[in-house]
């Protein structure tokens, strides 16, 4: 059944299917029950699957992830919801020292097929701690995989793929895109979906490669549309997977276009853009017409809501970077 639904609803449908398909899947987090989560992503799930499958937890993120580890050891597949990006840090110890390491520690005996869902990023006019982009903290951590969706189609399949994967996965949801719509085939077999750890060329182009993910894919696409009016044909790649990154797709593109711009909301310093720039430069050294440029959040704490428009990369800043890449 093909439906036009929001990204948030697509995650909801994906979770529902995961709960239906595997009795070991459980959802746990703050307010995920009757309320359906503060973004309503788990709306209706507790009603249909019961309080044992959709668990309202105490207000303690280390507890959410730490007990999920224990449930996973017992054979469950927990899906943890962290309410907002800025509230994942109480669970950080469990994530980097336990979730990321237990498979390695146990010489492969323990698998922790758990998913940690985090609505992330800014642009919703929120107060402090509600607009952050913590992906680098996870991508830098061996043992974790990190993915993020940018549209309802991916949201629907990627959440399911993440739950069925045996790797522990940080699943980042671009909260400002929760309300954007797309057409999703809810009956499509998961096996036919675009692979989880693959980048996608969302818009083919020839003149420069724009690398974006999550909330910034839309910005990159808009920039490409605007650039087309100026006669520049930009290729937009949606990374989709941040750890591991799908480098072959990226390298092929940049070797072809000779220019790359990375866009993300997180602060630039040691962000995804740094790694992408370093790798691309290594692998495309003689193809690059300009250094890989980055359009990112600034290296200050996420600012007050009335400053976030200035903080967040937008179409103009992307085009400005493209200009600079051409003028190098």
């Amino acid at each position, binding site marked *: 059944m093909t439906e036009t639904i929001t990204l948030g609803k697509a995650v909801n449908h994906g979770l529902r299917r995961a709960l239906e398909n595997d009795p070991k899947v459980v959802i746990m987090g703050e307010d995920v029950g*009757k309320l359906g989560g503060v973004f309503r992503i788990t709306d209706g799930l507790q009603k249909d699957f019961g309080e044992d499958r959709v668990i309202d937890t105490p*207000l303690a993120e280390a507890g959410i992830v730490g007990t999920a580890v224990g449930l996973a050891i017992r054979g469950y597949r927990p899906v943890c919801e962290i309410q907002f990006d800025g509230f994942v840090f109480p669970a950080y110890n469990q994530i980097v020292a336990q979730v990321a390491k237990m498979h390695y520690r146990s010489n492969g005996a323990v698998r922790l097929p758990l998913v940690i869902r985090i609505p992330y990023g800014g642009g919703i006019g929120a107060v402090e*701690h509600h607009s952050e982009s913590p992906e680098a903290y996870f991508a830098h951590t061996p043992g974790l995989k990190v993915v993020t969706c940018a549209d309802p189609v991916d949201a629907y399949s990627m959440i399911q793929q993440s739950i069925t994967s045996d790797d522990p996965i940080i699943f980042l949801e671009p909260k400002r895109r929760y309300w954007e719509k797309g057409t999703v085939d809810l009956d499509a077999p998961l096996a036919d979906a675009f692979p989880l750890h693959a980048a996608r060329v969302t818009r083919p182009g020839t003149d420069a490669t724009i690398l974006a993910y999550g909330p910034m894919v839309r910005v990159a696409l808009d920039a490409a549309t605007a650039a087309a009016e100026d006669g520049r044909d930009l290729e937009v790649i949606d990374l989709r997977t941040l750890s591991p990154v799908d480098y072959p797709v990226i390298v092929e593109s940049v070797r072809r276009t000779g220019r790359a711009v990375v866009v993300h909301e997180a602060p630039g310093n040691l962000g995804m853009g740094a790694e992408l720039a370093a790798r691309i430069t290594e692998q495309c050294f003689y193809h690059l017409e300009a250094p890989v440029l980055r359009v990112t959040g600034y*290296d200050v704490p996420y600012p007050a809501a009335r400053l976030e428009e200035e903080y967040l990369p937008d179409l103009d800043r992307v085009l400005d970077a493209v200009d600079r890449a051409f003028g190098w």
Partner: protein
Amino acid sequence: MAKGEGTTGTDIPAGGFVQLLTPDGDRIDSVTTADGTTYTVDFTDEEYRDLYRDLVTVRRLDAEATSLQRQGELGIWASLLGQEAAQVGSGRAMRPQDMGFPTYREHGVLYTRGIDPIMPFGLFRGVDQGGWDPNEFKFNSYTIVIGSQTLHATGYAMGITMDGRTGSADGEAVIAYFGDGATSQGEVNEAFVWSGVFNAPIVFFCQNNQYAISEPLERQTRVPLYLRAGGYGFPGVRVDGNDVLASYAVTRTALDNARNGQGPTLIEAYTYRMGAHTSSDDPTRYRIASEVESWKAKDPISRLRAFLTRQQVAGEDFFTETDEAATALALGLRERVLAMPDPEPVRLFDNAYPNGSPEVDEQRREFLAYQASFEGSGH
């Protein structure tokens, strides 16, 4: 005023908490808890009226904020509706030298500290992160990450001891606010550990408003929260958080114990969040109207009004005057909120570091140059 004619309690009453003013406005002279502590208040008529004024004012200001939010003038608002007595009682119990560490909902405490109520509006309007100088106002910034401020409060209280500012009646003490949900956070429990070990002059003031967003109390504990304290070696007491007199009495005693060198106390103020968690919340999804109704009967303001009326401490004129003054204040506040200027974009680079940073400076320069590039371009 003469002592109220309420019964003299000899132990925690049926409700399981310290109460000095019943929902009907009956005054209980004093309450003695199981550990032998007697709680009472001895206010002048004027002091009673002041408390009433506080309650009405903080409720009115809160209502104004809610309306500003609905009109799109605030990004979000965390209403204190229903928790006025817990906040006014505990706030008024602080002495000038005491330091408060709030969450994001303590607008009432802030008001009783004599602080300009405009202060947190920067945060909720989104023009800044809510910043002021905690030491100037003896009131820390609002803290949004649940529970973190309890450790800050504990450290500050340790500093009081290190400064030799406990052990006497003019010593200093700290009060840390948090909710029922916060009691589940590891950091809050660590604050209990530290306060016990260092005998810190601190009062943990937990407003148990029965909910953490949608989650009812039983998602955080299966026993009353005030019992938590015993396991860390300090007293815990439950107070009727809708009773401003009891909230005052219990907090005053606990703060004075702390300043005298007797260490921490956990107060559980049993109250109810009458409104939504914040303006973004929809409580109809998770609680029934009758529950809210039943708490209306325990309203903190109406019971004090009934008492003042019955005792002839105040009459209609006073009540009308009080309402009008509160409204005037609220409308003044509204004006000032609307007049808050949007910050200059470049301000986003300020105050990342006390000593600055060459990287941030460079980004600021680039930002200004980039902005300038649009000027005159009609962009």
